[in-house]
């Protein structure tokens, strides 16, 4: 049941020129492409003060993907300089701190400048995601969903079968609360709502206009998926809750912030 499919069949007209991604786009890569069929894939990494973690993250990503864009959200700890040291990584720097949602939107605007970009991955900078999961999710884009439409959105989930969420019990409780709340308000039967690992096709990304600077952008993405009737599925992913990411932003307080953002965001 890890792959629940969206209801895109109802809105066939929205899936404009849905070429099944991947197979159609096999132009030879002029850049340092690693796998030829991944030359149309961009990985967007929003980063704010992740100097301690982003190095290994970019090592892992650049080993798999040729096109990685880091959006440095005005970090004060040299995160951007670390990212700039990777020659294949494109660095976009916010002049002021705008929040993770804004960083993602900047990354989307940036990769859409590349006319060859067909598939986009969002990937957290704190080391909790695995590049192998991102690759598997990218490869699922364009494959038929349970309803037969080519998948346009793959959402990483910590709670499906095959996923591991090595989180504490209290945090899991809050996360599940956020999931229940989002399921009820967005009316999309997802099992995880605040997972930063996603794969989307270009047409999905082109329709995203994230207004929430903070964490509630995750909900905005789900709302767009439902409103546009994109074909979606979840993909079980492994989350590495290192001591670092534990200490960083993944505290209970952050979960409370997510819940508050959600509640306020709904009324805006």
């Amino acid at each position, binding site marked *: 049941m890890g792959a629940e499919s969206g209801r895109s069949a109802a809105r066939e007209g929205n899936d404009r020129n849905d070429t099944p991604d991947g197979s159609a786009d096999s132009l030879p890569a002029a*850049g340092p492409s690693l796998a030829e069929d991944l030359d149309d894939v961009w990985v967007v990494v929003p980063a704010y003060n992740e100097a301690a973690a982003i190095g290994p993250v970019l090592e892992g990503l650049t080993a798999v993907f040729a096109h990685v864009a880091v959006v440095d959200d005005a970090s004060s700890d040299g995160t951007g300089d670390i990212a700039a040291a990777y020659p294949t990584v494109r660095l976009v720097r916010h002049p002021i701190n705008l929040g993770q949602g804004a960083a993602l939107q*900047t990354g989307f605007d940036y990769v859409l400048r590349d006319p060859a970009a067909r598939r986009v991955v969002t990937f957290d900078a704190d080391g909790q995601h695995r590049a192998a999961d991102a690759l598997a999710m990218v490869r699922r884009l364009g494959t038929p969903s349970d309803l037969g439409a080519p998948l346009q959105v793959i959402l990483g989930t910590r709670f499906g079968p095959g996923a591991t969420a090595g989180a504490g019990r209290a945090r899991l409780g809050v996360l599940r609360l956020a999931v229940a709340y989002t399921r009820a308000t967005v009316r999309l039967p997802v099992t995880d709502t605040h997972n930063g690992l996603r794969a989307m096709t270009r047409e999905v990304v082109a329709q995203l206009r994230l207004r929430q600077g903070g964490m509630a952008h995750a909900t905005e993405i789900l709302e767009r998926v439902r409103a546009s009737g994109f074909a979606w599925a979840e993909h079980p992913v492994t989350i590495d809750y290192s001591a670092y990411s534990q200490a960083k932003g993944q505290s209970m307080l952050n979960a409370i912030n997510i819940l508050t953002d959600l509640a306020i965001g709904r009324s805006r």
Partner: protein
Amino acid sequence: MIVKALLIVAVVAIAAGLARGGARRLALRRVGLAVFALAAIGGVLYPDTLTWVAQRIGVGRGADLMLYVLIVAFLSYIATRFAHDRRTDRRLTDLARCVALAEAPPPRPDGR
């Protein structure tokens, strides 16, 4: 009655200060300000009228009425500020994004 003079001067100064500013809904705001200033000056000069008004609408004293009006005014101020801040935030975000993208390298070095 120095306090009366001070209060009237303060009301006039605030009204004059607020009358300037953006062109949008300026006329409405000016009318509202005139009403506010007249009412405030009247209240300062004839405190009994305030009490009279308060009793007509079911509030005990004029001072209580003042407090309630102040609370409502404060809350509406917060609301307008909040909306204004959000608009400013959005414009700031758009601007900062423009700067970030303008300074970013092209996605593909070969410009394909």
